[in-house]
């Protein structure tokens, strides 16, 4: 069997994994925005009142684009936004690591671990970014094929 036969299955697994990660990251932060705001402040890049806006809007954006990645109508833009957010998160974690900040990631809301393992976190986000790019590429390719058929 050719490797091409597995690509749709790999795309589906990648899509569901990314969506699941973003949805499960968003829900605890929606339930406890104050704790998430504390985590954001820990990065020492933005402060009140901007931090309250980010703590309010970012979890909802994560939830919508997480669900959006499995909804055909908005999955292309959702994929692009997820990729953009992952690049932002990688940059933020690299910056905190470089500054030697001893903070909690806040990625999944209130976390038990007091500090962040930056290398593991950046690696995880790089893997998610690679998976997102793969899914996005497949969606764009499928879109082009549909357009050609329509023509």
């Amino acid at each position, binding site marked *: 069997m050719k490797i091409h036969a597995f690509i749709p299955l790999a795309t589906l697994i990648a899509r569901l994994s990314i969506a699941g990660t973003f949805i499960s990251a968003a829900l605890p932060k929606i339930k406890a*925005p104050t704790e998430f705001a504390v985590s954001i*402040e820990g990065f020492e890049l933005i402060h009140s009142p901007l931090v*309250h806006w980010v703590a309010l809007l970012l979890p*909802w954006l994560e939830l919508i684009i997480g669900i959006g990645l499995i909804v055909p*109508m908005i999955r292309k*833009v959702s994929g692009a936004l997820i990729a953009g957010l992952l690049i932002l998160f990688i940059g933020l974690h690299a910056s905190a690591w470089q500054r030697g900040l001893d903070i909690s990631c806040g990625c999944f809301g209130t976390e038990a671990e007091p500090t962040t393992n930056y290398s593991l976190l950046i690696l995880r986000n790089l893997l998610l970014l690679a998976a997102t790019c793969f899914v996005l590429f497949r969606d764009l390719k499928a879109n082009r094929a549909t357009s050609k058929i329509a023509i």
Partner: protein
Amino acid sequence: MALLIKELTLICVLTLLGASFSIFSGLTQPPWSASELEAGEIHQVDAEVINPIWVDARPEVDYETAHIEGALSLNDSNWDSQIFDLMGAWLESPQPIVVYCSSASCDTSKQIAERLRMDLPDAEIYSLHGGWQP
């Protein structure tokens, strides 16, 4: 291109609807009200970052029911017995002190913070903006 803008708009609208739900259901206070600090007040988010000594200015019965972890009870009725515990904690570890009561409308935390400033003039003392609910 128009389709992508339409998708982006839909995502933004859904995000704003979700954020509105958070505000109107009471999950969070509106960010625009978070900036209205009076002198000597601090937001909970900022207070948690500085890892303060928490002082619970509510009645002792409320303190017994629930309080912020590690908080000391201090109000007008137990002042004489509790003030030394607080002074001891502050002398042992001179961190900022944050006093809280139960809501934005309660005034006790400001009064207790004011009284504390007289007894501990070298301490950094705040009252918690918006109060604390279990």
